[in-house]
């Protein structure tokens, strides 16, 4: 899962070297904290959060098989 989020986020930004994904596992869910260069924030959030929401939807779908709840948070 982390690989998928990392791949997509790195492909969306101008500075892939500054992408950092942290996995925070809780009891019922896993949260992926996404950090990018400040200049790339718009590239992973999008207008009205459209890109961030698409990332969340894709992550949720990819976690269906393992019946795991996942959250994707963009950390500014």
């Amino acid at each position, binding site marked *: 899962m982390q*690989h998928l989020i990392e791949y997509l986020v790195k492909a969306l930004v101008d500075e892939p070297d500054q992408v950092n994904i942290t996995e925070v596992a809780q009891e019922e869910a896993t949260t992926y904290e996404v950090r990018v260069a400040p200049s790339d924030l718009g590239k992973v959030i999008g207008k009205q959060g459209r890109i961030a929401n698409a990332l969340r939807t894709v992550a949720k779908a990819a976690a269906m098989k393992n019946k795991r709840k996942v959250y994707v948070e963009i950390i500014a």
Partner: protein
Amino acid sequence: MTAEENGTSLGESEQPVSIDTTELNADQRQAVCLLEEVCVASGLDCAPIVRSLQGAYIYIDLAGSDAHITWGRMGHSLDALQFLCNLIISHRVSTDVRIVLDSDNYRQRRAHALEEKALEIAREVKERQEEAEFEPLPSHERRLIHTLLAEDPDITTYSEGDDPDRHVVISPKRR
């Protein structure tokens, strides 16, 4: 088999055909490569198969034992992945390449379901002579409904609201 023949081969009993990757240009190959990398990164059993090419559009199926549960069933996961992939590919290539994703015949099943619902709502609108709204849908799905109901002389359709809440309204036509 040519791309043209491919685009029309929607018969349910027909075996799906795939395009030989040697027929693709460099930018189209980039699109396939992107989907291959996405599938590998997901750790799931799925892989892209090119079904047809129509102008700028490249139709890609996600196949494999995990494709159904991940992309072929859950509401808008396919649209979300398609949106992200088109954003990414537009950065990577110079020509116009538009990726259209499908999995497990989701698009066709979804279209059938939407059409049935649209006809049902249209029937109610005519009976009650009152407007009715659809739930918010992406543009290509709204278009399906507008096209389907365009020839019905008793109703009109339009969309209102802004994405992601934009939705189709069906209203009775005064005669």
